[in-house]
C-alpha cells in the first residue's frame, strides 16, 4: 500500500483497511524516497525522511480511526514504481492498492508513470482507486 501523502493515496489506504478487516489481512504502508542518481542510494535524506515519517504516521492514524493496524516502511530507491513492485515481491503480498489523482495533460487523461509501472510489472493483483474529479 504505497502512500505519498496525497489525498488519493490516503483514500486508498482507508479503502484497504475496510477491505482487509473482512479478510484479516496485514497492510503494509510504504513511503518511497526517490534518490536522484547524483547521490548514492544510501545518501542521508533528512528532510525527505522526515516527510516520509510524517506521512506514515498519518497513515497509521487513519488506520487506527478505522480500527485497523498498518505497519509502515520507509524506503529509498532510484524509482518509486520499481521499489513498490520489489517490496511487494519480497513480502509476498497478495494485492497492491494504489491511489491516483485525476491528472490531465493537454486535455488528455494521464495515468502517472508509477501507476503504469506497477500495473505493468507487479506479479500480484493491483487495485487502483482514482479520486473523484475536482470541480
Amino acid at each position, binding site marked *: 500500500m504505497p502512500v505519498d501523502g496525497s489525498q488519493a493515496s490516503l483514500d486508498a489506504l482507508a479503502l484497504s483497511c475496510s477491505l482487509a478487516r473482512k479478510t484479516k489481512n496485514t497492510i503494509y504502508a510504504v513511503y518511497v524516497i526517490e534518490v*536522484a*542518481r*547524483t*547521490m*548514492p*542510494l544510501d545518501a542521508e535524506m533528512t528532510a525527505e525522511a522526515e516527510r516520509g515519517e510524517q506521512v506514515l504516521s498519518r497513515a497509521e492514524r487513519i488506520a487506527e480511526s478505522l480500527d485497523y493496524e498498518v505497519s509502515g516502511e520507509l524506503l529509498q*530507491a*532510484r*524509482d518509486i514504481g*520499481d521499489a513498490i513492485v520489489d517490496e511487494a515481491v519480497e513480502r509476498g503480498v497478495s494485492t497492491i492498492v494504489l491511489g491516483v489523482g485525476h491528472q490531465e495533460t493537454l486535455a488528455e487523461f494521464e495515468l502517472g508513470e508509477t501507476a503504469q509501472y506497477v500495473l505493468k510489472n507487479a506479479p500480484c493483483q493491483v487495485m487502483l482507486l482514482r479520486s473523484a474529479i475536482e470541480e
Partner: protein
Amino acid sequence: MYAIVVGGGKVGYYLARELIQGNNEVLVIEKDGAKCERIAQDLGDVVLKGDGCEAATMEVAGFGRADMVIAVTGDDEDNLVSCQVAKVKFAVPRTIARINNPKNEAIFRKLGIDTTVSATAAILSQIEQELPEHPLMRLLTFKGGGLEIVEVKVPPASAVVGRRIRDVLLPQQSIIVLLVGQDGTPRVPTSDTTIQAEDEVLAVTPTENEETLRNILTSPPGGSEPGSSDPGYGRPGPAGPYEPYR
C-alpha cells in the same frame, strides 16, 4: 565504485552484468527504449533511457560522482563525446572508450581519454603476431593514461641486434622491462643485456614516444635512431634511462 556505461548493446549489457556481479553500482545509459526494457528486466533498475552525449542526461545520471565512465556504443563519435565531457565537465577520474575504427585511436588519446579499447585492433594484433614482421603491439595502458606497455619484435636486420641495452638510445621515460628470446625464454634485462635478433621486447613507454621506440628497435643500421641532441630522448650511460639496472 560507481560506473556509468554509455551504450546498452551487447558489450554494454554484459559489461554492466559483470560489474554488478562485482558489487559495483552501475548505470547503463541507452537511447533505445526496447533495449532499456530488456536490460531492466534482466539486471534491474540500472538503466536510464537517454542520450549519453547530452549534458542534461549526464547530469541526471550522476556523472559528477562517477568513478568511471565506459562508453561502448557502436559509434566512435558518441563514445568520444561521452568520455570527453565526462573528463572535462565532470572530472570523472577514469574514462574508457570503445573504438570501432582503429584510426580514431590517436585522436581519442590526444583528447585525453584514459583508455581506449579496439576490438578491431586487438584482432589485428593477434593476426600480426603470427606474421614474421609485426609492428608494435600495445598490451596495456596504465591508469590515468600517458604510459603503456608495448611489445616490439626485433627483426634480424635491426640496428640494435647485438648491442647492449645501455648502448641503445631509447626515448625518454622508456624502459625495457622484459626480453623474450626466440625460444620463448624470458630474460629480465640489465644494462649489460644484449638484444638479440627475434627478441620480443616488452617496454614501458609514454604514448607519444611509442612510434619512436618502434623505429629504434626495428630500423636497420643508419635508420631512424635519433641523436642525443634530440630533446625527446634519454642519454645512454649512467645518467640514462638504464640507471636502475646497475
